């Protein structure tokens, strides 16, 4: 350290004061040798409504400038010392007189140093500096002002916690920083933490030149990219994943067709997103809670919802779990910890954080996983939930299916910036971008995210890049806003199922024969389920009135009674397929 203890003049001054003031003090700006801290300017920061703005030397400066400044300022004083010393020696004045002169000069120097300290708004870590700063700067709590507010109280500097931290900063020499220059980076303790300053005006770019890279383990043709692949997906798991993906695709195809045939009212397929659905579900435990959006029937399928249960739900029959109350796609299962789908977009996000908060208190080895599309990140609820989950330290994994389209709105019209993954950092959330059509990458990423979320009790954001091959729903014809070529390209070249199938076939775990058999078998299962569900009776009349409240309220009992009376009096008006 240059101007450390060994500097020859330092014993003449208050050691602490000068060393710390000098080393961590204000030594002029980077922009010019002569630049002093702005004199006469009061910054509004000195309105200490927080009472916590630290004192603060605010700029760093190279040694060169320090030397120059020092000598420029004190050159006069040094000259005086030199002159008098020489004079006394030459004129042979007694030592005693010399001592007087020297004391005078010493005092002069001290006063000068003090004035210099004041003028450079130096922070003072001890009483002397406090005195100086307080008397000069009013209440000694801000860095720029030399407007003298002489109404300082001497010991005000002691009152605020951040000033103690500031003192520690100055007195501590083990910053971990070695270079002199680094020791000159000044920080201010704002509410919320220390922030370093710069004189370079720099607007952070709206998005970085290079987009965040996508995590992927299998390439487009299903070849492993790394030579040493993580060994998490063995044969049994891989086959289970594949079978489920094929089941999901078949189920989607047949249910979609059934809706077009008029057998039920509405359906949404997840074509192209099978890997996200199944692979992510495969990496979770049955204790984890799921709050999905509406294109995650694969997750429910993996967890144990049977094809028959799906069909019952879509047909709205009496054995369906929903008692015929919910329109299709609004399935749910308390047993499988999959919350009933809620239609308004992004409502599940803050609710998921709430479930995670509740789970956190239970201290289980479980987390909450919530799915949403890139379009719903425009909703206010997305912002609230991300912010909140970080503030509450909720064990939650946010999985965004960025499939390029929100009905007819492409991502370029949905938001600017580099997608969803960069938004996580703004909220203080660890995030990753993943190739959503790569089963192994999704599996790995979600698995790790889950571990972090549970162990460290914090939220994680995963952006899974994929493409919505199907229409938004049965009410949509996507060829109206995108080309058939684009759809076909993603459906064939980037199909997650094909890719994974190639990998398992090359591993010797699967054959073409088995594949065709599987397709035929699953097709039959789904078809049977639909037919059977259709044959079932619709829910009974009483199911219209129950579950509005925990207990049937009197007005509904009344309504049911009067309805039954009406049916009794006019049986022909009542539909025949509704059991009483």
């Amino acid at each position, binding site marked *: 350290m240059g101007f450390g203890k060994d500097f020859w003049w330092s014993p003449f001054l208050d050691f602490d004061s000068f060393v710390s003031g000098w080393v961590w003090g204000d030594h002029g700006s980077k922009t010019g040798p002569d630049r002093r801290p702005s004199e006469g300017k009061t910054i509004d920061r000195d309105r200490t409504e927080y009472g916590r703005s630290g004192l603060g030397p605010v700029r760093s400066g190279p040694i060169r400038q320090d030397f120059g400044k020092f000598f420029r300022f004190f050159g006069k004083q040094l000259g005086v010392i030199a002159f008098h010393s020489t004079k006394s020696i030459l004129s042979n004045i007694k030592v005693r007189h010399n001592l007087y002169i020297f004391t005078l000069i010493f005092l002069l120097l001290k006063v000068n140093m003090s004035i210099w300290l004041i003028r450079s708004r130096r922070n003072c870590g001890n009483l002397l500096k406090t005195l100086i700063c307080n008397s000069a700067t009013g209440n000694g709590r801000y860095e720029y002002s030399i407007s003298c507010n002489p109404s300082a109280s001497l010991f005000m500097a002691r009152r605020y916690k951040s000033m103690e931290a500031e003192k520690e900063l100055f007195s501590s020499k083990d910053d971990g920083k070695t270079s002199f220059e680094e020791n000159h980076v000044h920080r201010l303790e704002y509410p919320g933490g220390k922030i370093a300053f710069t004189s370079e005006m720099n607007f952070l770019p709206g998005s970085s030149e290079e987009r965040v890279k996508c995590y992927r383990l299998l390439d487009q043709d299903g070849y492993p990219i790394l030579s040493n692949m993580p060994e998490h997906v063995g044969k049994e798991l891989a086959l289970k994943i594949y079978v489920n993906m094929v089941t999901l695709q078949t189920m989607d195809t047949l249910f979609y067709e059934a809706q077009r045939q008029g057998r039920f009212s509405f359906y949404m397929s997840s074509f192209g997103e099978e890997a996200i659905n199944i692979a992510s579900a495969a990496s979770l435990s049955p204790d984890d*809670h799921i*709050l999905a959006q509406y294109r995650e029937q694969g997750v429910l399928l993996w967890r144990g919802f049977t094809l028959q249960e799906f069909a019952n739900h879509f047909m709205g029959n009496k054995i369906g*779990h*929903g*008692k015929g*109350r*919910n329109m299709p796609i*609004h399935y*749910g*299962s*308390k047993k499988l910890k999959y*919350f*009933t789908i*809620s*239609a*308004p977009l992004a*409502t599940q*996000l*803050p*609710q*998921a*954080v*709430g*479930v*995670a*908060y*509740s*789970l956190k*208190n239970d201290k289980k080895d479980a987390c909450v996983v919530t799915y949403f599309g890139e379009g719903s990140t425009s909703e*206010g*609820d997305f*912002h*609230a*939930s991300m*912010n*909140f989950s970080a*503030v*509450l330290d909720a064990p939650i994994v946010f999985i965004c299916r960025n499939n390029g389209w929100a009905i007819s709105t492409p991502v370029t019209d949905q938001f600017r910036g580099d997608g969803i993954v960069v938004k996580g950092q703004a909220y203080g959330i660890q995030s990753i971008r993943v190739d959503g059509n790569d089963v192994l990458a999704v599996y790995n990423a979600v698995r790790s995210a889950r571990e972090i979320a549970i162990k460290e009790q914090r939220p994680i954001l995963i952006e899974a890049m994929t493409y919505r091959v199907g229409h938004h729903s049965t009410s949509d014809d996507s060829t109206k806003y995108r080309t058939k070529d684009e759809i076909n390209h993603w459906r064939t070249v980037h199909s997650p199922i094909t890719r994974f199938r190639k990998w398992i076939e090359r591993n010797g775990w699967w054959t073409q024969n088995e594949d065709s058999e599987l397709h035929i078998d699953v097709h039959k299962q789904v078809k049977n389920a639909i037919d059977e569900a259709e044959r079932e009776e619709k829910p009974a009349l009483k*199911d219209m009135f*129950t*579950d*509005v*409240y*925990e207990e049937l*309220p*009197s*007005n509904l009992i009344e309504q049911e009674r009067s309805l039954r009376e009406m049916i009794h009096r006019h049986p022909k008006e009542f539909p025949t397929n509704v059991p009483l």
Partner: protein
Amino acid sequence: MLGVIRQKVIGAKDVMRLRPVVSSMRHYSSGTKEMTVRDALNSALDEEMAADPNVFVMGEEVGEYQGAYKITKGLLDKYGPERVVDTPITEAGFAGIGVGSAYHGLKPVIEFMTFNFSMQAIDHIINSAAKSNYMSAGQINVPIVFRGPNGPAAGVGAQHSQCYGAWYGSVPGLKVLVPYSSEDARGLLKAAIRDPDPVVFLENELLYGESFPISDEALDSSFCLPIGKAKIEREGKDITITAFSKMVGYALKAAEILEKDGISAEIINLRSIRPLDRATINASVRKTNRLVTVEEGFPQHGIGAEICASVVEDSFGYLDAPVERIAGADVPTPYAANLERMAFPQIEDIVRAAKRVCYRSVPLAATA
């Protein structure tokens, strides 16, 4: 010498400190305790949180600030930040989080700084909290309480003065409660927290500071009022006046004025907007044969409209005069004090309406 001075000073202070103690002792001896609505709500929250570890409070300023209206005073110190959660400014956020945590079994008490701000979270209240039990076929129930001040305060303008009783009262799946006195506040809040269904608890800012006498029974920690039962605050035989929240106080004062004119008014404190206690209202109308409904909210599709329809449906033959509804003016609440006063029902309005219904004065239609 210093000691003497010190003693004297302390002596003076002691006397001053003694005074409140003396006066409360006087209260004990006479038997009627008084409690402000604020303290009633605070004590109810305190007792319910002590009784059930799943109950927690969440909202803006509920913790460190002791509550925007000091309703949650002292709770943070007693129960810690896990159970008294200060939130960032996002009604949609914390209402959603409350609903989510209720899905999982906690019992949140979500505070809105006023119910005007609940509109930012209304999707969670209605589409999620109210409908989840039904949509999930009974699998997911939402034992949540949304509470906060509702309706006009004093000089707070249009966006801080709306009454949401009618909005929430129209949604099946919700229960909507409107306490008036401290006893109402205590009993209904406890009932709301214990209820397995979502409850919207509409308080009133101006009532927070008002003191009401409270019985020992109401101070007991297991005290609970039934949801869906109105209270007849004052018996009468000539006219029924229904009111809720602050308007109950006005109606009671109007009843005293009407008494001098020989009109005996029966005042019904609704206590619960959903479920509405139609039985009590109808029984009262059948006794008195005349009805005036009072509310602070906007007149169209208001609480009075529903009560009127219910009475016309069930007790038409018993009515001796058309039902009169008194409601707030059909304008966004003005700020200027004189205009604000004219935008909300005052005691004189209730008295005049009662007289019109009793045909003691010319009906409004004739004056038009």
